[in-house]
C-alpha cells in the first residue's frame, strides 16, 4: 500500500503544515530579533509572543471541546465524540505551554516562577479539568459506554465557562497578572510589537489546526481499529469453537 494512503495526511494538511512551519520561522525572526525590547521588561517581553498565542489557542480548544461535548450529548454521533477528545488533548498541550511560558516569564518580571494569582489558578484549574475530561473518557463505567460518554461530556461542557472565568479573573479579583492587552478597543501595545503578537496568534492557530486535524484522524482510526479488532476476535473465537466441534 502506498505511503499517502497509510497516514493521516492529505493535501490540505500538507499545505497547512508548510504554512505553519514557514509562519513559525517568520515568527521566530520577529519575536527574537526584529521586534524591539520593552522599555520596562527589556527582552523578557519576547516570551509574550509565545505565551499569549498559546493561551488564546488553548482557550479556543476548550471552546471546541465544549461545543463537541454539547453536540455529542444532543446527537450522539461519532464525529463529535472524536472531535471532543482531539481538541481536548491538543488543548491540554497548549494550556501546559501557556502555564510553563507564563511561569518562565514571571520570574524576571514578577520575581517568582509561581504565585496563586487568580489568572494562574483558574488556568491551572482548566488544565486539571482537561486532564479529568480525558481521563473520564478512558475510565470504564459499569452502566456502559453511553454513561461513560455522558459523564465525560458533562465535564467537557464545563470547560468553556471556566475559560470565561480565566478571562475575567483579572477584573473580578485582585491580580498580579496584567489586564486585557489586545482584546480591548485601544490595544496597549502597538507597531512591530502588536504585529508580532498578532502574527504569533495566527501562526499558533495554524499549528493548532494542523495538530487538531491529525489528532482527529488518529481518533477516527482508533475507533475503527478497535471495532475491527473486536470483529477479528469474534471471528477467531467462532473458528476455534467450530474446530473444537461444540459451542463455546
Amino acid at each position, binding site marked *: *500500500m502506498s505511503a*499517502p*494512503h*497509510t*497516514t*493521516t*495526511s*492529505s493535501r490540505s*494538511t500538507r499545505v497547512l503544515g508548510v504554512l505553519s512551519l514557514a509562519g*513559525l520561522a517568520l515568527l*521566530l525572526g520577529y*519575536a*527574537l*530579533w*526584529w521586534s*524591539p*525590547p520593552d522599555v520596562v521588561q*527589556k*527582552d*523578557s517581553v*519576547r*516570551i509574550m509572543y*509565545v*505565551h499569549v498565542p*498559546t493561551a488564546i489557542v488553548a482557550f479556543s480548544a476548550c471552546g471546541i471541546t465544549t461545543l463537541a461535548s454539547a453536540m455529542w450529548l444532543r446527537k450522539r454521533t461519532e464525529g463529535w465524540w472524536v472531535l471532543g477528545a482531539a481538541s481536548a488533548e*491538543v488543548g491540554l*498541550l497548549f494550556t*501546559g*505551554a501557556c502555564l*510553563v*511560558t507564563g511561569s*518562565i*516569564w514571571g*520570574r*524576571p518580571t514578577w520575581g517568582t516562577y509561581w504565585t496563586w494569582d487568580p489568572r494562574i489558578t483558574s488556568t491551572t484549574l482548566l488544565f486539571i479539568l482537561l486532564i479529568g475530561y480525558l481521563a473520564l473518557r478512558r475510565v470504564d463505567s459499569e452502566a456502559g459506554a453511553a454513561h461513560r460518554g455522558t459523564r465525560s461530556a458533562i465535564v467537557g461542557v464545563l470547560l468553556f465557562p471556566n475559560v470565561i472565568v480565566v478571562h475575567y479573573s483579572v477584573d473580578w479579583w485582585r491580580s498580579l497578572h496584567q489586564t486585557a492587552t489586545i482584546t480591548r478597543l485601544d490595544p496597549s501595545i502597538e507597531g512591530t510589537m502588536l504585529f508580532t503578537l498578532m502574527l504569533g496568534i495566527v501562526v499558533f492557530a495554524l*499549528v493548532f489546526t*494542523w*495538530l487538531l486535524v*491529525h*489528532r482527529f*484522524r*488518529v481518533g*477516527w*482510526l*482508533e475507533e*475503527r*481499529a478497535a471495532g*475491527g*479488532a473486536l470483529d477479528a476476535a469474534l471471528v477467531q473465537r467462532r473458528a476455534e469453537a467450530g474446530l473444537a466441534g461444540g459451542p463455546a
Partner: protein
Amino acid sequence: MGALAMTHVGYVIAGWAIPLVALGAYALRTIRRGRTLAPQVPPEERRWS
C-alpha cells in the same frame, strides 16, 4: 538588536524552546500513531485518503 545584546537570554530561550519542543514531539507522536493505525483500517473508512 542582536542576540548577544539581549537581556534575560536564558528565560527567552527556555520560554520558546520548551513549548516548541513539546509541540514538535507531540506532532511526531501523532503522525506515528496515525501511520501505525491507518493500515489496520480499510481505505474506504479513511475519508481523507
